């Protein structure tokens, strides 16, 4: 009887050790398979401004309120026009800084006279909510110097960016944290 019991016990122990080995195997195999695919540096999410279609979902789909994605101005690409496609809404009767003439719903763009006939447009980051209306206007009627970027002092760096998941043109992807931004006026 006792011999039977011992056999049962040793069989149990064998099954347990075998199970332990089978279970440890993936813990060893998975990192081994991933050795070449592991990066020591971090990654952050960023919008590729050349793929962006200015759909406006950057404002609504970010998990944060206000959104971590905001408009940035590539001054070197700007035409400094009086009739700015990103500042003024379509069909303005007069070109002025009046709120009714502005495209931006939060009034985040400031228009400053530089010299004849150039005006400088700057984005007030604190007011910008990432709706991309100015980006669309600038892209449609101007030089496309206004573009969307995710700001990394606000972005929480989710494992799956909610905006990236729903971006209609798949413009948002992970880039190395050392690069962090994809400016439109990069050479």
């Amino acid at each position, binding site marked *: 009887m006792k011999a039977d019991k011992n056999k049962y016990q040793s069989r149990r122990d064998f099954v347990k050790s075998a199970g332990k080995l089978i279970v440890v195997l993936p813990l060893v195999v998975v990192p081994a398979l991933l050795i070449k695919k592991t990066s020591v540096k971090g990654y952050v999410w960023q919008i590729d401004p050349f793929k962006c279609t200015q759909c406006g979902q950057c404002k609504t789909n970010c*998990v944060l309120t206000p959104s971590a994605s905001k408009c940035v101005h590539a*001054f070197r690409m700007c035409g400094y026009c009086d009739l700015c496609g990103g500042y003024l809404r379509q069909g303005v009767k007069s070109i002025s800084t009046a709120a009714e003439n502005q495209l931006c719903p939060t009034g985040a763009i400031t228009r400053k006279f530089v010299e004849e006939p150039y005006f400088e447009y700057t984005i007030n980051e604190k007011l910008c909510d990432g709706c991309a209306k100015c980006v669309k206007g600038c892209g449609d009627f101007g030089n496309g110097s206004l573009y969307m970027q995710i700001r990394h002092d606000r972005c929480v760096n989710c494992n799956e960016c909610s905006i990236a998941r729903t971006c209609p043109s798949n413009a948002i992807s992970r880039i190395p944290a050392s690069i962090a931004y994809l400016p439109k006026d990069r050479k």
Partner: protein
Amino acid sequence: MKKALPYIIFILLLFWHVAILSQDRFPRPEFESGHVYPTNQMPVPRAPVWGYIDLAVLLGALTVTTWLALKKRSRQGLVWMSLFSLAYFGFYREGCICAVGSVQNVSLALFNTGYSIPLTALMFFIIPLLFALAYGRVFCAGVCPLGAIQELTGIRPVKIPKLVEILLAFVPFIYLAIAILFSSTNSQFIICRYDPFVGIFRLDAPYTMIIFGALLLFAGVFVNRPYCRFLCPYGVLLNIFSRFAGKHLTITPAECTNCRLCEEACPYNAIIPSNIEQKQEEQDKSRKRFILYFVFVPVFALAGALLLYNMAPVLSGANSNVRLAREIRAEKKSGIESTLKDVIAYKESGKTETELYNEEELIIGRFRNGSPWAGAFLGISFGIGMISLTIKSRRSEYKPNQGKCYSCGRCFKYCPIKVKS
């Protein structure tokens, strides 16, 4: 041809400028007043070293929790540990990256080129599993922020019917299988998307997430650790690994005297009572039943594989490219133009329909490859679950079920046995 070559090269060289000038509808200004372009100062992201500091905190927290649960045996200590993890991994790190979600990163990296898994994510996946293999589910006890928030709000535990518990306990397996399937096909990270507590950690979420989280926490006051028991996909892995732990938390600090005082101590029903008094079933009968269920396991695996293989087209709808292709097809068929932003963006992009449909075929193909494995996994888990329900082993002590026990230490105070230190 040779004569024209330099001119051809010249024209080609001119095209270099097209990319930069392509949108220059209005010429760049030439400032006479000497105006200087302002510079954009973009904020830098969090330095990578902080990710490694998080890893160090993880290791430290796991070590301290193990010591608290196994050596010091202090429920109070484990509660304080949970509070710390909630504060650090929950509210400070805003719940991301967590070990629960790291499963998806690993599966994405294994089955896709073009994605490198960050070392921190891989370590967040491996390290809690290593600790589980050695010491049990100490990760759940005092380190996981989701577990911590549920542990700290689970104050009025209520026992639920065994059948309900068994049925709901299968949900994490389904969640894990679907999560791995979706992340391996680069479709979605559903664990992150449907994480109920991350909105509370960030103090910012769409209202649906807040409601889901709040409801789950409220339910958790009575049915403790609802996410851990009935949803957590990582818990499936921890469950499996923890069963092989050599040094696991014990209810008694020394030997069990079968006083039965701890029987109702566990709100998670993780204490397996001893059954030396019960009549032992005939070995023959139990052996026959075991063999019968054992034979059924491959049958379940096959059934699961077939079921999920047939569900592959439906499941592939999780992928946005597949959804786009279907929308385009529907648009063509019905003649009604779609208003979806994805469709508008696709039309602007200039991608041909053939390309789109080829992509769709590829993705559905990947789902067809992957879903039988998910189905087989579900079938095998179901089969093994059935076996474990029918196995009646002889137990002479009250022990925690190493797969289910979260090493929370609630049972410590019920055991009257004290060891002289």
